[in-house]
């Protein structure tokens, strides 16, 4: 197998993993929205596939480093792939977290506003993750920048949650639901960061410079 083929395979594997992660995120967010326990359990089980994909990328990357002397674009691409796979793996863990949260709240009353916020944030993170991976695939640094800017929306949602939460705080019935959803929001916020990190990788790949977005 030539160097070209090895790198192409590595990138293909990354996008396959990306596909798995996005599907898992969609399942997680929908499960949480519909309080669908079965879907949640299915999401959690699929995490094994994501981990396997991650391991494969990791191993192939090490092998590539050991056998080839990568420079320039090849170097930037392969290191970006490795870092992106790590971010994707974290996003996969986020999907699992969504599944767990669903299982915890499905039979409890939940504050509607916070619930809606979580779902909105979840959809936003799915959108960002999807665009980030697309920008990486197409070497589109403008898309990367635009996607990274959506993190502002994530922050706004987060802040709105902060304003809502105290209003509901006193209500004992809703406490469990509130608690779980708030922690879920914090986790989603980190998911947004991972998507932004992937956008930074796109920028690095295209320009050779590393910048924080």
């Amino acid at each position, binding site marked *: 197998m030539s160097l070209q083929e090895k790198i192409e395979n590595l990138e293909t594997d990354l996008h396959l993993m990306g596909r798995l992660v996005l599907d898992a995120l969609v399942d997680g967010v929908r499960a949480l929205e519909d309080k669908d326990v079965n879907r949640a359990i299915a999401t959690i089980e699929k995490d094994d596939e994501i981990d396997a994909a991650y391991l494969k990328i990791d191993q192939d990357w090490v092998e590539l480093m050991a056998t080839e*002397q*990568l*420079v*320039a*674009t*090849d170097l*930037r691409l392969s290191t970006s792939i490795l870092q992106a796979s790590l971010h994707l793996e974290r996003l996969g863990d986020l999907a699992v977290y969504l599944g767990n949260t669903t299982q915890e709240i499905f039979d409890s009353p939940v504050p509607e506003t916070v619930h809606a916020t979580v779902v909105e944030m979840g959809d936003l993170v799915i959108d960002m993750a999807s665009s980030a991976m697309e920008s990486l695939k197409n070497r589109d640094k403008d898309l990367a920048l635009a996607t990274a800017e959506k993190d502002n929306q994530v922050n706004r949602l987060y802040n709105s949650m902060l304003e809502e939460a105290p209003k509901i705080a006193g209500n004992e019935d809703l406490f469990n639901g509130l608690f779980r959803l708030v922690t879920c929001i914090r986790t989603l916020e980190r998911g947004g960061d991972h998507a932004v990190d992937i956008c930074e990788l796109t920028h690095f790949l295209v*320009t*050779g410079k590393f910048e924080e977005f």
Partner: protein
Amino acid sequence: MEKVNLNTSQENLSKEFVFKADNVSVSYGEFVAIKNVNLDIVKNKITAFIGPSGCGKSTLIRTFNRMNDLIPSASVSGTINYQGVDLYDKDVDPVQVRRRIGMVFQKPNPFPKTIRENIAFGLKVNEMTDNIDDRIEKALTQAALWDEVKDDLDKNALELSGGQQQRLCIARTIAVEPDTILMDEPCSALDPVATKRIEDLMQELVQNFSILIVTHNMQQASRASDYCAFFTTKTSDDGKRRTGELVEFSETNSMFTNPKEELTEQYISGRFG
């Protein structure tokens, strides 16, 4: 090709240059080996010349110490400015040039004499014979060879290993106190261990000398050099002659992580050449 500037920051202005090549071309009779080279070589740094075979890197490096003068059909156009002086000015003595700008060759070529005599020769022809034993010791020490040969200075140089012979050649070059050392693929005849020793030696030597190295080994260029010049060949219209050209010249780190020219990217990634 227009003159490549490294950058115009304040940092650049404080750099000293040992060579400034301005539109240099070298021909052998009618055959143009390399043309239109514009390069500024920074002092006390290691600059590597890389590129496929036949792109004129060896030819170019030999213009810097006027070794091309030995080939009757060779001619050089353009100017090479060495520390403020035009190297090819008619008043310049090539013999003095070669003392100030030393050269190490591809295949180690020690004289078939003792180790001591190998170094003494350069000192004698340049009338640097005062404290000759100290000078010999200093040169061998700087070339990281003293410890290995200090008890055997009267041994024949040809009995040394390839790597040792090459270090001896480096020692005799630096004994005459040049300010620049030109190296034409100095490690291609050596095994990897000997090669590594020479590369380590280069890092030490660069504190006192400017070093120009022609190398076929891309990893060596990326590991060992501070600046890198990439040359390629262009075939003439009738397909019969190939002339070398400078494609890109930049700091090694940036050339190997993010080269400016597509051709450079292809060559260093191993896609051609």
